[in-house]
């Protein structure tokens, strides 16, 4: 048989609550208890609200560049909802919703974008890593963190989030490949929002799906509607179950869209069609959950109003905490350089100078030597 089939595969796509409000009972029933659904909606709502506030903070000069999360809330939230409390969540910068669900305080995120490292000084009990600025690099840390758990014989897994653009980086490939070949339980989640700043998705991945990136590593792969909290929860259940019981990785493409600019430094109208943006507004992850809850009589306008009121207060308090933190001292940027500061660096800190005369005013006085009898031939 000269031509045989060496390999064969297919990738399923999951959608449960679609933008028309259709709800698939078979997959969806009992997936998320009603009380939880309400909480999940509230979490998305609050995250969305913070997003708007943060945007305005930036515009009024009270914060630096900020990447809005708007439209992508259901992806990381689905993951955070499913993961165990001590599973690692290793994210990029568009996963506020999942991080808040885990207990990361809003002001941590705000502080980060206000140019303050204290925003990253997250207590280890959140099992979350700091915002990753260099694209595509954090997935390797997720693989390492899950590996550490495996090394210790713990059942902890890691879940890592990254964008479609990030899948172009070599580090993505290496992270997935290490996990696959060394049997490390990591759930890789690509938030495919079709854009990496101004670069369209097909420049990052011209294959029919981003999900098939995972086939390269022999991982099970899924594509899901990332704006459908039921679908993201469903997929994360499958994936985390697989990771935990098999000790192996899983790849999920969550199809979503950022409704805002890339960051506050960006103007997406330069490169995106208005029509495209409009069409995605109809697929908003919040709207469909709200409508679904209304159908189930779990939600009404009054609750919405009450939620808004609660949220405004919550966010305002977080902003206040972030803005009222004491200004950092210059020396702060020395103090966590090393467990113990090398002498040299301590001298820089203590003098806030790098020129040696500045660090050692005594040296200046020492020119008195010049008038003393020369010890050496020409000094």
């Amino acid at each position, binding site marked *: 048989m000269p031509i045989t089939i060496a390999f064969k595969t297919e990738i399923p796509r999951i959608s449960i609550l679609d933008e028309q409000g259709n709800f698939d009972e078979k997959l969806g029933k009992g997936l998320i208890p009603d009380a939880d659904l309400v909480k999940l909606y509230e979490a998305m709502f609050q995250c969305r609200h913070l997003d708007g506030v943060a945007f305005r903070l930036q515009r009024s000069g009270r914060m*630096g*560049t900020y990447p809005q999360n708007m439209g992508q809330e259901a992806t990381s939230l689905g993951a955070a909802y499913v993961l165990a409390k001590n599973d690692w969540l290793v994210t990029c910068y568009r996963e506020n919703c999942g991080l808040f669900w885990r207990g990361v305080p809003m002001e941590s995120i705000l502080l*980060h*974008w*206000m*140019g*303050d*490292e204290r925003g990253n000084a997250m207590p280890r009990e959140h099992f979350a890593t700091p915002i990753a*600025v*260099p*694209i*595509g690099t954090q997935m390797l840390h997720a693989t390492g963190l899950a590996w550490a758990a495996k090394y210790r014989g713990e059942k902890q897994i890691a879940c890592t989030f990254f964008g479609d*653009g*990030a899948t*172009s*980086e*070599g*580090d993505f490939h290496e992270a997935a490949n290490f996990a696959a070949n060394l049997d490390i339980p990591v759930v890789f989640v690509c938030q495919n929002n079709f854009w*990496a*700043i*101004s*670069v369209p998705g097909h*420049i*990052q991945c011209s294959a029919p799906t981003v999900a098939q990136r995972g086939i390269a590593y022999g991982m099970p792969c899924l594509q899901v509607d990332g704006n459908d909290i039921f679908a993201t929860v469903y997929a994360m259940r499958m994936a985390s179950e697989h990771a935990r019981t098999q000790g192996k990785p899983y790849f999920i493409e969550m199809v979503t869209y950022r409704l805002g600019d890339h960051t506050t*430094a*960006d103007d997406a109208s*330069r*490169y995106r069609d208005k029509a495209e943006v409009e069409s995605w507004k109809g697929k908003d992850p919040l709207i469909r959950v709200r409508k679904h809850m209304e159908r189930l009589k779990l939600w009404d306008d009054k609750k919405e109003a009450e939620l808004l009121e609660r949220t405004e207060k919550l966010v305002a308090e977080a902003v206040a905490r972030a803005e009222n933190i004491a*200004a*950092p001292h*210059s020396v*702060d*940027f*020395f103090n966590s*350089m090393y467990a113990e500061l090398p002498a*040299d*660096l301590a001298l*820089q*800190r203590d003098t*806030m*100078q*790098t*020129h*040696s*005369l*500045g660090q050692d*005013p005594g*040296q*200046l006085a020492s*020119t008195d030597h010049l008038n003393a009898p020369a010890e050496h031939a*020409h000094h």
Partner: protein
Amino acid sequence: MANLNMVQAINLALIQEMEKDERVLLLGEDVGNNGGVFRVTEGLQKRFGPKRVVDTPLAESGIIGTAIGLAMGGLRPVPEIQFEGFLGPAYDQICSHAARMRTRTRGAFPVPLTIRVPVGGGIHAPELHSDSPEAIYAHTPGLKVVMPSSPYDAKGLLVASIRDPDPVIFFEPKRIYRAFREEVPEDEYVLPIGKARTVCEGNDLTIVSWGASVIQCMQAIEKSGKSIELIDLRTIYPFDADAVETSVRKTGRCVIVHEAPLTGGFGAEISSRIMERCFLHLEAPVQRVAGFDTIMPYYKLELDYMPDAARIGRAIDDVMAY
């Protein structure tokens, strides 16, 4: 002659080189439709088409690695790396290949490549958007490293870089991308790589600097009221040792200023050279005013990190008092 800021001057240089030489093409993240995140390549894709201004996948090693192939294939690629903090993933292709291909092949495969990279701090940006890694690349034989400090210089040096038959890292100090304008001739001119510029003459002390720090040095000089000679290196490698030597032999005193961390920064090389070549002319030890040996802090503290006129002024005083 037009009054341009550095972004415009670079844009103009790119247009003129692309018009002159079919082999010149631009590639990088967001350089096309979006005109680059700093708008340096604004309008170029419209003007020259998507074949010559190419949005690439988000992968710095890929950008430089394919640009090396483009150069080996006879073209003159001008890749952009979005921020100096993202040179890291491309380090290996730059240092193990771009820098080595000519030597490796005894000249059979030169790599005429100009890597444009916004560099340095002071713009309130997030982490890894404010570093100054020029010393790393200056320590890598086979590369040339250029960093202009003004729109005029940026145009003339970029033209020289693109025409250079060897790989050049062209650092663009983002802090002064739009900080000021100056007269920039439309007409072609080329500033030679490896030649410093004497910004102002003086007899008491020499300051050597490059990039955005040159502006801080000018401020410090003004405040000091002393007769200070300011040398803007323009090129980090090969650097204009003659210009530095000549000046220091005259003044006997020298302060070197750069944003990069002190230890192992390029100031160390210059300082050593001065000692080696001007030993008997030195009235005081050469001093370095540099970034601290810490990670560049997030932006709340970035101004505390970078050398400013006050720190430079203090060094001037200390050296003069020696």
